[in-house]
């Protein structure tokens, strides 16, 4: 700790603080322009100059100067103000000052400072900038005439996102921010640069001329897409979400979002949203009243009783899931499930068997402080981009060593310090086993109170790095290095994502990963952690609330099997579109056709077209409640807009249904949460109203394993086929709902089949050509995309698009043998 005086106030602060941070902590205001909390100090703008007694004779930039013992700082004086005013005058010499048509007007740092320092005239003359602007990009508008060269965009895209779109080009007065070769942007479109720019030089294009910042109502809620659980702040006007606002004070994402969270909001105001219940009459879906629909459903449900199958989505709030559970128990059915391919088995079965828990053991802020990180499956960045940014921060700030067990290269492989452990598709477990083998063989394991070490050691005899390397085409030395790093690191993290496109071996992968986490001592150690991250916004909540089959119940896939055979008369789908997203489309369609189907969703989805009753539901922006994210953080959603037409939130629908079943239901989400804390282990003691802006992590920052059992799992034989298809996620999409959002669709508008360079040459295919994949007698066709991240023989397709019909050949395999051909 260091003692210093700022404006006569005695202050004690951390040794690592800068003068600015020390002042801010103590409520002393110093203006800044190029400073940002989440970026490294830079010192470009000189607006934050202060006077330090010990360094008399010149002014000191407070945002880059560390505090020292006994420092005496003055933050305002006539001289300082004069200098600050001069700095502003300099900035305004070339600045275009088109505030009336600049969307930043009203929340522009330059505007605010100009006002504060009363810069009404300018002693200096100069030419105004007249640079070309980029207004064609669908998501990010750039107007460098308004740039103040603070470098925040350059820094955030490099330090946080790890993409590096921008840099300063030219020199002196000509200096400007530009992309490589000064071309258009072609990046992740996460919009971090948009949120960082203190002026109107980088703006969200979809918000162009829509409203002024002061007209927007800010509503703090949680992103409805993935399990990362980023907090977002909706900018609401005229019952529409106009934009997503920058807010770094809530959640643990420091205001960082991905393209889906920042630009994927338009579906909530889409004109094709369902607004009235529909009932099938005379073979057609016709509008009906809520009462009629609910009566019909209640009758059917009661008649079906224990033969009702309920498949829920993982984007319902915890409170809604609680009511859904109530409905299932009121009807006596055990057939309750979420996420079609039982991809969550890793958590419910895998982690439970080895450690007796079913959640990630650490929290995101701990990952930032890790020294070694292992990502299993290269898609991790694509499914959980903001967690990917946390990993990037660990690398930048902490020099962490990242290893990626991957069947294809991805964003993570490109980060500095990244070591990609490439292997043949479907062989993740072999790789993890090899890591475990090295740790045991080299005596690096932390074996205290581990059960089953002998069996595991024996079973791993076949998994020496050399054998595995040979079998799956990996690099044995790299495996050894990674194993040693993980075992030796003070803090380490293992991250795995699960979701609909990765249904195969999810339990086995989780067990293998827990073995590794136990051997390295990562699981349960303060600062380290094993992270199993669900694909959807409330995947963890669904696990915590056990939206899983009861003792005599069928899982989602079995329900569909059963329904297809006519043994399950009634199916209730809440917020799921299995026709598009579940494995084995043929089976799904048959099941939906055969059963009396009730679908509750935002849109008339492909699955809803088979329904007998369709209920219009509410999006995440229209409801209150809580989501639990992949690090067990319970965060509050707040309604920002009203649902269109007669659409109702799932909570209200479930309430009415419970009433129709002569059962009582909690009156509001807050009451439901109260009941929930009594039923869900770990949630006890958490009070809805007290869940703060940073949320509430159940089970504490570090969740200790209840047991430590090592279980041997066998690896897989690589598939012997010339061409192998991997199914996965694209960065710009999450599930299928993002394909109804303008933002993601403007940068990734259609399905594609991705090929590596070598295969493209062999097949004579170029980006944009139509190609066809044939597997088990079924063909799918799409445009090709040629890239250099896939090894020879490996083909990739994202699963989000209905148009591709990928699940006609994807039936839950980890990898599919296909025959590609050019059309």
């Amino acid at each position, binding site marked *: 700790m260091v003692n210093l005086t700022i404006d006569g106030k005695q202050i004690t602060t951390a040794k690592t603080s800068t003068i600015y941070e020390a002042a801010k902590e103590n409520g002393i205001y110093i203006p800044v322009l190029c400073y940002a909390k989440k970026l490294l100090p830079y010192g470009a703008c000189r607006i934050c100059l202060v006077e330090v007694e010990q360094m008399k004779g010149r002014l000191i930039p407070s945002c880059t100067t560390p505090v020292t013992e006994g420092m005496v700082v003055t933050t305002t004086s006539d001289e300082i103000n004069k200098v600050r005013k001069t700095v502003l005058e300099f900035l305004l010499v070339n600045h275009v000052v088109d*505030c*009336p*048509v600049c969307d930043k*007007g009203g929340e522009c740092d330059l505007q605010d400072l100009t006002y504060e320092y009363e810069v009404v005239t300018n002693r200096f003359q100069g030419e105004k900038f007249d640079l070309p602007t980029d*207004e064609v990009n669908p998501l990010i508008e750039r107007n460098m005439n308004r740039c103040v060269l603070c470098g925040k965009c350059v820094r955030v895209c490099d330090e946080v996102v790890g993409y590096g779109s921008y840099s300063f080009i030219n020199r002196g007065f000509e200096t400007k921010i530009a992309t490589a070769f000064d071309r258009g942007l072609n990046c992740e479109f996460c919009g971090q640069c948009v949120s960082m720019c203190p002026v109107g030089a980088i703006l969200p294009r979809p918000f*162009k*001329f*829509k*409203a*002024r910042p*002061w*007209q927007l109502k800010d509503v703090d809620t949680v992103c409805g897409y993935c399990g990362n659980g980023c907090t977002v702040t909706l900018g609401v006007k005229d019952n529409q979400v106009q934009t997503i606002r920058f807010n770094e004070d809530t959640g643990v994402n420091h205001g960082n979002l991905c393209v889906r969270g920042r630009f994927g909001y338009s579906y909530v105001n889409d004109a094709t949203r369902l607004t009235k219940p529909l009932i099938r009459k005379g073979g057609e879906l016709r509008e009906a009243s809520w009462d009629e629909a609910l009566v019909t459903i209640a009758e059917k449900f009661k008649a079906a009783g224990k033969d009702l199958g309920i498949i829920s989505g993982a984007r319902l709030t915890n409170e809604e899931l609680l009511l859904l559970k109530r409905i299932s128990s009121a009807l006596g059915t055990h057939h309750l499930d979420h996420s079609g391919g039982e991809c969550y088995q890793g958590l419910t079965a895998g982690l439970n068997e080895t450690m007796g828990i079913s959640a990630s053991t650490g929290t995101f802020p701990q990952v930032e402080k890790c020294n070694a990180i292992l990502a299993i499956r290269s898609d991790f960045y694509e499914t959980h981009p903001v967690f990917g940014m946390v990993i990037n921060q660990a690398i930048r700030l902490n020099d962490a060593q990242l290893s990626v067990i991957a069947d294809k290269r991805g964003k993570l492989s490109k980060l500095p310090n990244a070591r990609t452990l490439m292997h043949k598709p479907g062989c993740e477990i072999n790789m993890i086993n090899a890591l475990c083998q090295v740790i045991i063989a080299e005596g690096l394991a932390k074996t205290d109170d581990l059960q089953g070490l002998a069996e595991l050691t024996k079973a791993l005899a076949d998994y020496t790095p050399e054998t595995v390397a040979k079998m799956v085409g990996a690099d044995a030395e790299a495996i050894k290095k990674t194993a040693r790093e993980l075992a030796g690191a003070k803090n380490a993290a293992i991250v795995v994502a699960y979701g609909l496109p990765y249904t195969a071996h999810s339990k086995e992968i989780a067990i293998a990963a827990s073995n590794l986490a136990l051997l390295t001592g990562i699981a349960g150690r303060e600062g380290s952690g094993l992270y199993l991250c669900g694909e959807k916004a409330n995947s963890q909540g669904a696990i915590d609330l056990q939206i899983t089959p009861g003792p005599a119940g069928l899982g989602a896939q079995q329900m569909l099997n059963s329904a297809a055979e006519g043994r399950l008369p009634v199916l209730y789908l809440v917020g799921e579109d299995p026709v598009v997203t579940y494995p084995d489309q043929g089976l799904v369609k048959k099941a939906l056709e055969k059963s009396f189907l009730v679908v509750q969703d935002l849109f008339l989805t492909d699955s809803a077209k088979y329904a007998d009753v369709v209920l219009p539901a509410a999006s995440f922006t229209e409801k209150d409640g809580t989501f639990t994210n992949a690090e067990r953080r319970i965060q509050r959603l707040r309604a920002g807009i009203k649902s269109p037409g007669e659409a109702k939130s799932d909570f209200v629908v479930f309430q009415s249904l419970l009433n129709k079943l002569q059962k009582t239901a909690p009156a509001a989400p807050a009451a439901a949460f109260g009941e929930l804390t009594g039923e869900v282990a770990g949630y006890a003691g958490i009070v809805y109203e007290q869940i703060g802006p940073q949320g509430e992590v159940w089970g504490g920052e570090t969740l200790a394993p209840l047991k430590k059992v090592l279980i041997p799992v066998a690896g897989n034989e690589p598939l012997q086929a010339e061409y192998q298809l991997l199914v996965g996620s694209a960065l710009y999409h999450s599930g299928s709902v993002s394909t109804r959002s303008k933002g993601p669709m403007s940068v990734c508008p259609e399905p594609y089949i991705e090929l590596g360079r070598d295969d493209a040459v062999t097949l004579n295919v170029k980006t944009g050509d139509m190609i066809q994949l044939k597997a088990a007698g079924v063909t799918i066709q799409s445009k090709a995309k040629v890239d250099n991240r896939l090894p020879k023989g490996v083909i990739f397709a994202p699963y989000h698009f209905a148009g591709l019909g990928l699940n006609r050949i994807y039936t839950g395999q980890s990898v599919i043998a296909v025959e590609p051909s050019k059309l």
Partner: protein
Amino acid sequence: MFKEFAKGLSITLKHLLPGHSTTVEYPKQRLEIAPRFRGLHRLVPAQDREKCVACYLCPTVCPAKCITVESEENEKGEKYPRVYEIDLLRCIFCGYCVEACPVEAIEMTSAYELANFKRGDFMYDKARLLKS
């Protein structure tokens, strides 16, 4: 006492003589309007559009909240008011809008004969304000 009374009355009578009245015979006769009079608003036209750039400052400053602006992007990528409307029944003719406008796109004219028959007729939309 009578003297004072006669004196007072004579002043009154003097004013009754022709040429001494301050009342004008409106509408036949009209007073000259002061140059800073605040009457009906006018949107100033520019070359091929209105001068207004839809900055939202006038609706923000308006104490009667009677100005509606809805901005949009035109084919040239410029910001323009797709909707610009003033509800004259609510307007208090304070002139703040004129003062706030950064581009001098709105003025107040000398027109004060604004009576009308229907409520709707007091809604002045963009086309009307451009012509007024």
